[in-house]
């Protein structure tokens, strides 16, 4: 652990009754870094975030913030949530409906016994920072969803917490706003040099917003790394499947040559790819290739196969081709409309993963 580490979670375990939710999670967040907790619904992302915040009760492991242990099962340390000095942006925003925007944001400062004139000044600075200055006297129910979200961020930032936690911050916005808010939020975090832990279930959101991604699956970290690593070097089938749009085909290992293997697929195709499994020849395996890696070719060749193009779909910025290969539907992208018929499809060997 270097001194740049601001949040460190070590082997944290948590159960509801006899039902284990977190099964020993370890992670680190460096100063000024944005880390996403990514995973399917129910994988324990929110639970991990809330355990860091002090809202859930783990039974094992430790949590340290800026060198101060805030939870340590072995040493019997469990600092209550209000003493952890963390900022949390709730998925539901959790604005207090009986307080104005100003009072919502001012409340943490009031609790910290900040002088009144300093409160006014800091709250207005925080609101201005988020473009909310003109809304200070409104009540939460008089704001749009996007504005409410900004208020809840202002409230979490106003007391300069060392780490800010965000639970699905964009999920309550509609699809178009979400993309803009994503850029805005990333920019805000970088500009203010915040250290942020963000929960999301959307892989593109995670990749766009964060410096590092932790992929949770069933209460354990499946893989962690930079967005490019996670997308380009998945270590398990789960990660490959979760991070992107894929063609997935099942078959049996036909041949092995070092780090490469040939898979004979159930749909009749045989391809070479990168071997990510210890399965021996003759055993079942899966081939995964990103949709954008599969491409049309002019003629047959290595890792090329003849398939039936069924339709071309226009997606605005590109076309998506749909092929029949045996019982499988395969997809690839291109720039032109293609008429239906027999085509050669190339699945480049360095883009096929065999799990």
């Amino acid at each position, binding site marked *: 652990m270097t001194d740049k580490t601001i949040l460190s979670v070590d082997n944290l375990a948590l159960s509801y009754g006899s039902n284990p939710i977190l099964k020993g999670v370890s992670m680190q967040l460096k100063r000024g870094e944005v880390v996403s907790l990514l995973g399917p619904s129910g994988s324990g992302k929110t639970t991990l975030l809330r355990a860091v915040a002090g809202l859930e009760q783990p039974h094992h492991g430790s949590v340290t913030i800026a060198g101060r242990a805030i939870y340590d099962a072995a040493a019997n340390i469990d600092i209550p*949530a209000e*003493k952890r000095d963390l*900022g*949390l942006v709730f998925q*539901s925003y*959790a604005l207090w409906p009986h307080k104005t925007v100003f009072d919502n944001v001012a*409340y943490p400062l009031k609790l910290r016994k900040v002088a009144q004139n300093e409160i006014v000044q800091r709250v207005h600075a925080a609101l201005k920072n988020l473009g909310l200055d003109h809304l200070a006297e409104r009540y939460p*129910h008089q704001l749009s969803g996007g504005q409410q979200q900004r208020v809840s961020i202002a409230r979490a930032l106003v007391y300069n917490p060392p780490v800010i936690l965000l639970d699905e911050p964009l999920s309550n916005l509609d699809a178009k706003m979400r993309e803009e808010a994503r850029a805005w939020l990333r920019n805000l975090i970088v500009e203010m040099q915040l250290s942020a832990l963000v929960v999301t279930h959307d892989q593109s959101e995670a990749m766009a917003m964060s410096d590092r991604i932790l992929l949770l699956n069933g209460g354990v970290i499946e893989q962690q790394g930079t967005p490019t690593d996670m997308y380009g070097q998945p270590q398990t089938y789960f990660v490959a499947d979760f991070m992107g749009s894929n063609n997935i085909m099942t078959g049996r290992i036909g041949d092995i040559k070092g780090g490469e293997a040939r898979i004979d697929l159930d749909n009749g195709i045989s391809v070479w790819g990168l071997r990510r499994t210890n399965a021996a020849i003759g055993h079942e395996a899966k081939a995964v290739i990103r949709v954008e890696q599969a491409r049309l070719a002019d003629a047959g060749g290595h890792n090329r196969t003849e398939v039936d193009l069924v339709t071309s779909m226009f997606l605005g910025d590109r076309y998506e081709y749909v092929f029949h290969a045996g019982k499988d539907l395969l997809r690839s992208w291109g720039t032109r409309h293609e008429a239906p018929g027999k085509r050669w499809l190339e699945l480049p060997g360095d883009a096929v993963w065999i799990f």
Partner: protein
Amino acid sequence: MLQTLPRRAVVALLALSVFFPLGLVIYQSVLSGPFFMPAAKLSLESFAFIFDDPDFWSAAKNTFAVAIGMSVIAIPLGAILAFIMVRTDLPGRKWLETPILIPIFVSPVVLGFGYVVSLGPVGFFSVWFQELFGGVPWNIYSLASIIVIAGLTHVPHVYLYSSSALRNLGSDVEEAARLSGASPFRVARDVSIPMVSPALLYVGVLVFFLGFEIFGLPLILGDPEGHLVLTTYLYKLTNKLGTPSYHLMAAVATCIIAVTFPLVLLQRALLKNAQRFVSMKGKSARQRPLMLGPWKWLAFGLILAWLFITVVVPVSGIALRSVVSSWGQGVNLLEVLTLDHFHAVFEENTMIRSIINSVLIGTLGGALAVGGYLAIGLTTHRKNDGLSRFVDYIVLTPRAIPGLMAGLAVFWVFLFVPFLAPLRSTLFSVWFAYAVVWLAYGMRLIQSALMQVGPELEEAGRLVGASNARVSRDITVPLVRNGLLGAWLLIFMIFEREYSTGVYLLSPGTEVIGAQIVSLWASGAVDVVAALSLINMALVGIGLAVALRFGVKLHD
């Protein structure tokens, strides 16, 4: 969603059922004599008479004292009880949930009687206390006792509303405050309590006007020392002048309604205001209960003490009194045990009839009432037109009329509307009065059941070709079946518990236990009252047991 014609018919019938009796009361109050007397003419002399009567003013004063006193007792206790039950790790919370609500389902006249036989001058607990300590520090017949008992027995009403407000309060807003640095105590002070204050205000108004309408407790506890409240004053007027003094009773009733009706409207406005907060609640449903630590035993003890005073004392007193021939200082309990009172009850036709009638009105009558409420509910379901808003107001109106008065008004209706007259001495008149008096309560049950049906399920029915009426019959009603069963069971309990509404409708053939107790009490037949009270509680208890068996929620 009914078609226009049946819809209008339902609303017209409803309006008639509510406004005709009410109109009759108000009309009667400005006549110089009973309205069936030809000599009666428009005049304000009935008001002049009661305003001239010192008893009226002392009753009015006592009524305010009771209403204010019981609000002051019930609201804080009920709110604290709700907080402890919903938000802390109190031991035995699940187990306590049902007993806490019992006072709501016990007839106040039975409760009053229970206090007399337990804590009265020769009550069981008084005698035991005296034997142990040599004296009894309380006087159950004082106005203060009435206020305290009324306050304690209305704690569950406050509990009901504040606990559901607390449950609706998403824990995320509280957690946000914790994260901002607030201690649990500050969270309660700055977030939780302000956010449930609209509900508290609402229930405060409710308790205040229930205080205006209470009848059973002051009837029984106030009589020995002559403490009258407006309802008992009205009841006493029945025989005051020798001739039926309907115009005077109507004048008193009009005075009561003049206070309660604005309160009902105020409540409605408050409810609207409260909903603004509810709609803001977050999604997070997880709640970590507040650790009470050693305080939990104190809280537990206080709740048990309250349950002891409001449930155990009166109920055990009645149970005991119904199986002893006499009781007093120096009497050995074992020597006076007897089942004679029950024999007496089952030997007399009127008593047997009152039990059968009570069961009929609860089961059959309850089902009919739920059917009627459902018809009204469907006329307004997912409609926001003028007719729906009109129904909203009609439904609220009977709440402002004390049951005693509503029963009298219905009696008049059945007495003087020629084609209804033959029904007067049948159970139908009692059922009609009950159904009108409990209209607002029943409609709330029905409407909350109807709101559970997702609108898209009904819309899907419309799109595949079903008419409004078919959608109601084939989709909405089948989906709310469980809600209707629950409503029926709750209405059963409420109808068993009811007493004041039947008082003026009591005649051979229309006896129900509650009204029978009121009338027997006046004649001093304590033994039979005890047996009937126990039977009455048993009926409510059966309803409660069945309701719990079917998982009916006793509150929303």
